[in-house]
């Protein structure tokens, strides 16, 4: 029988922030994968490109996850694969298998798609495939198809870029530059659409413009229209690499404005936006007062309730913890495995001011047998925190939930309040793959 354990410093799965190292508080070793499925993967992200098909060229075991993701989304007809085996890798030409396999798949379709996200994989790197040759040949065989060069190469992700970062970059890399539409602002945000009540959306509207972002695309033409954007605004860290490259290629401004919990940073973002769009700043003093009142109300409501939060709910988990702690809310633990560079200041602040705040790993092996019971009510913000705390009182949010700015903070407070008062089925919630997507098994 497996023995339950509590995450602790001695088993290197939990460390008070006061003693934690930056940016990796925990040793990187064997990894456990908690049954929390809500994060989007490369298949979900690629499906945001309307009418595009995805083709993966890889081994059986690697193919399984992506093919089932597409099936669960009800998008199997836009997903295809070419299986490679030992013979292909050791005795024949992987490049030719890739080219002929993709050609075979495309020839079997009733209608050719306007774009194909082609995913080559780790073995293409290791066998030094001639990727340029592969794409040159495919583009000559299918001149009407926009081949988007993606990688499913997780072996590279710790030392290079994550596959989803590469994919987002590739999706922008194939956008043709068009004449500027002065009424269009591109937002390269999370996979969940930007909150329409956010200051960001409102200011863009006030400038007489419309937000143009992947989650709202209905047609392939919507995708091509990215090339008409007047300004690009990036709100999601995983899009920054691609957006910077796109900006460099096109010569059009890219403003990096991730959702923040730091009032000064939000003010700076709003000022930058105001200058770029040529619109009046919103009344930030009024927004701040509202925000302050809502956070104070939330503190009264929660009292001393223990709060756990995680990196899935928000890209700034330490910033969120810092803000809530500053309002007296009893945040005891943050689940994360690494600290992002843009949270370094929050990390230092917490280290100095709230040294007992616990940082808890999610992938350390001991987390497989971590005690998931608590004698007290725990409120969780984020699905991994909910799973590990095994609490039915949780905010079911990933990727910042589309929230942004002061309005985003107020709305997050509303969500926390709702979670405090209304229970949810944690197993059902966290089992849905790609939160916000269709997930057939749970319909």
């Amino acid at each position: 029988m497996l023995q339950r354990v509590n995450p602790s410093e001695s088993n290197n799965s939990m460390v008070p922030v006061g003693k934690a190292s930056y940016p990796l508080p925990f040793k990187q070793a064997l990894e456990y994968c908690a049954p929390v499925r809500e994060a989007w993967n490369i298949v979900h992200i690629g499906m945001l490109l309307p009418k595009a098909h995805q083709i993966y060229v890889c081994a059986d075991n690697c193919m399984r996850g992506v093919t089932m993701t597409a099936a669960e989304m009800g998008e199997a007809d836009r997903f295809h694969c070419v299986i490679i085996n030992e013979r292909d890798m050791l005795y024949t030409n992987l490049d030719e298998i890739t080219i002929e396999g993709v050609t075979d798949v495309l020839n079997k379709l009733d209608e050719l798609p306007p774009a194909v996200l082609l995913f080559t994989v780790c073995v293409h790197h290791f066998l030094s495939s001639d990727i340029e040759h592969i794409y040159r040949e495919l583009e000559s065989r299918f001149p009407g198809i926009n081949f988007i060069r993606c990688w499913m190469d997780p072996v590279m992700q710790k030392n290079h870029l994550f596959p989803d970062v590469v994919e987002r970059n590739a999706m922008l890399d194939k956008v043709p530059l068009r004449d500027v539409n002065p009424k269009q602002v591109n937002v390269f945000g999370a996979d969940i659409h930007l909150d329409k009540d956010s200051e960001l959306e409102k200011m863009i509207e006030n400038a007489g413009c419309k937000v143009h972002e992947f989650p709202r695309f209905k047609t392939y033409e919507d995708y091509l229209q990215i090339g008409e954007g007047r300004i690009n605004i990036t709100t999601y860290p995983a899009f920054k690499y691609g957006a910077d490259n796109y900006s460099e290629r096109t010569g059009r401004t890219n403003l990096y404005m991730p959702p923040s919990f730091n009032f000064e940073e939000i003010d700076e973002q709003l000022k930058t936006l105001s200058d770029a769009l040529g619109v009046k700043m919103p009344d930030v003093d009024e927004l701040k007062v509202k925000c302050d009142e809502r956070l104070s109300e939330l503190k009264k409501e929660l009292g001393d309730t223990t709060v756990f939060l995680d990196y899935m709910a928000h890209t700034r988990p330490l910033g969120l913890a810092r803000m809530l702690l500053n309002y007296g809310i009893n945040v005891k633990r943050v689940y994360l495995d690494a600290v992002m560079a843009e949270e370094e200041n929050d990390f230092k602040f917490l280290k100095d001011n709230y040294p007992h705040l616990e940082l808890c790993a999610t992938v350390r092996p001991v987390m497989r047998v971590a005690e998931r019971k608590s004698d007290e009510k725990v409120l969780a913000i984020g699905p991994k925190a909910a799973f590990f705390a095994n609490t039915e009182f949780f905010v079911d949010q990933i990727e910042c939930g589309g929230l942004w700015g002061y309005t985003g903070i107020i709305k997050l407070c509303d969500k926390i309040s709702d979670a405090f008062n209304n229970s949810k089925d944690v197993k059902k919630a966290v089992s849905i793959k790609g939160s916000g997507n269709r997930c057939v098994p749970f319909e």
Partner: protein
Amino acid sequence: MRETYKIVPVYSGDVSGACSALYELEGMVVMHDPSGCNSTYNTFDENRWYEKESLIFLSGLTDTDAIMGNDKKLIDDILEAARELKPKFVAITNSPIPYLNGTDFDGICRKIENELGVPAFYIPSNGMHDYTIGAGKALMIAAKKLMKDKAQPAAGVQEIGVQSTGDAAAGNHPAADAQNKGGEAEADVIEIEEIKVNLVGITPLDYSRENAVSDIKEWLRTSGFTFNSSLSLDTSYDEFVNAPDADVNLVLSSVGMECAIYMNEKYGIPYVVGSPIGDMAKFIAEDIRESHENKNNINSYKRVAYGSGEGLVKLIGEPVFMGSMAASIHILTGRAAQVIVPTEYKTDLLSKGDIAVTGEEEIEQALHADKDRTLEIIGDGMYTRVAPEGVRFINVPHLALSGRMYQNNK
């Protein structure tokens, strides 16, 4: 091309199969694979992940460790976790990159075994085969490494006893209940040999129904047999280790074949291949007795000539489960049945008229052949995408193919 799939998903891979087979044996299984590759297995191929803990981890292989041959990191990481979590054994599976590099897994396992003092073994895999290969090898290698020596007497009859079904106090004959449902039970009590039976090759990938093991155990009991071990669903390390105490192995899927062959050679335990589905159950029970008595290996469903008869029922999927269902349908209706086998391990498991297929094109051709004669197709619902129109399709969900898609309507 055989390698391309337009719309049908691929089966669970060999690494998932190995993890599934070893899941409940209280060991630690390490997939030597990059970060993120674990979620494929535990999302789509493993329905126990949320409720039942198992020490299955990923090594988090990086490009630099792979290129530089940094096996020390893998060894040190395994030792660290094992010292903390105290598994009863360590098993390592492989993936495409370490396979290309020619990583010396046997050497790594020897080192780990010496350091930890618990068995450590490698499951040959490379991510390029389906679950029947990975799970089959895992069971067979775990049997070699973990199973105890057979108790004395080494083979055959363990003891003589009196078996009864139903109300033991009434002393009914095991067969009587089946023959006299609700009627007068025969009062005769006869002496029969106790035959201990293992269930071999049962994992959720083929048997995902909640009560699969308990139902088969109950069938064994009512058929007059004694359950010995499950290899390896609803089981434990001790149960697995004690498997050589059995008299007969019942092979419930192709996953169990390599293990059954090994146990036959090592312990002299004969095996019967078949799943007790419908009318096949009583034939399998007879075959278990015959196998025990004659020490011969029997494939029960292949004894039923299900390839001939009126009309044609096509079944597609894993060969032992679908072969048994085909035989059962033939016994019940007299219809001809044909099994189309897309899974990889199929040695000696196809009956005359059955077809082995590889890839979506061949699957589609096999399903469309003889369309006018085909009365119905039975298989996982994913195959409706390539099945001929106008032919009735009966969905029998198979976790190894459709994953979580139909698990609510089994």
